[in-house]
């Protein structure tokens, strides 16, 4: 059968600006940009440890640059935003079932935030103890 004439609207490169849901999606995807920067900083830190005390001190000075601190503040916000978008997806993709019942989403999400807090507190506490 011959198909009738039809028209198919093409998508513009700016499709994601058309709805708030898509803007938030793009924001979530963008959280990885500061992450790449932070990972780069951490690679530099490991390499500085490898090179010697002088390199370590200048790496610390680099990390203390106000602009770097500002970007890392942004990175922290990005990682928390990523976590906030990611945690609620976990119980949807991997539902934990006990019989015919599914474990409540809030319990799992809450549990994952607890893990974030525990790891952060433990690491901070460890370095304070070292000082």
């Amino acid at each position, binding site marked *: 059968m011959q*198909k*009738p*004439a*039809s*028209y*198919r*609207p093409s*998508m513009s490169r700016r*499709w*994601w600006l*058309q*709805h708030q*849901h*898509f803007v938030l*999606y793009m924001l979530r*995807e963008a959280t990885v940009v500061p992450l790449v920067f932070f990972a780069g900083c951490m690679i530099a830190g490991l390499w500085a440890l490898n090179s010697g005390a002088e390199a370590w001190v200048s790496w610390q000075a680099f990390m203390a640059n106000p602009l770097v601190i500002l970007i890392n503040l942004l990175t922290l916000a990005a990682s928390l935003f990523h976590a906030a978008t990611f945690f609620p*997806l976990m119980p*949807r*993709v*991997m539902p934990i*079932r006990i*019989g*015919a*019942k*599914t474990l409540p989403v809030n319990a799992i999400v809450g549990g994952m935030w607890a893990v974030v807090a525990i790891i952060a507190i433990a690491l901070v506490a460890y370095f304070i103890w070292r000082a």
Partner: protein
Amino acid sequence: MSQTKSIRVQRYLPEQEPEPFWQNYEVPFDESTSILDALNYIKDELDNTLSYRWSCRMAICGSCGVMVNGIPKLGCKTFLREYGTRVDISALAHFPVERDLVVDMDIFMEHLEAVKPYIIDKSKGRPTGESDTYRQTPAQMARYHQFSNCINCGLCYAACPQFGLNNQFLGPAAITLAQRYNLDNRDKGKRERMAALSEHDGVWSCTFVGFCSTVCPKHVDPAAAVNQGKIEAAKYTLINLLNG
């Protein structure tokens, strides 16, 4: 019905005008007037050239999908009272438009067919005859039940930018249906479905935008099903590689 609302409908009449155009209609409404009621009013009272699809008027046939202010909606489940002064109705996004609000859904049907959305069971123990039936416990049914509520309305395809960018992507409803049968203990056809799901245009084209689940009128959560499908496709691909 003293109040009226002005509604813009995107028209496409290829024999008159090569490009789609907007047309205004003034429609009376009250608390219970749905978008579909408004379209019916236009067709019956104002302009009988308007084309659109509908059947059940109760959110079960899945044929009345349209974009309302750019968001995919079932016409019969969406009410004029929910909107302010702007009510723009256009054809479902990402599908070729044949006429006014009527889209060509062939590609959607092809994707549904590709995942074999029916129980496949060639085993010896399958039920035969009239008095013989499958047994399924409530716990076994709970595994897939949510995914079986799909009415094939295609709203999730209109919501999915990945399908908009590449219409070869199997898309939310088809992958959800595959997952629905894969999770059904009566089904033995998972292997037959996994090859289609494990292609680049299968589960891997999904980036978990998640808007499909937001617009789904039946709370199917196709985004969850697609991402469950990624775990299954990963397993299937690995087993395939190990078997050479």
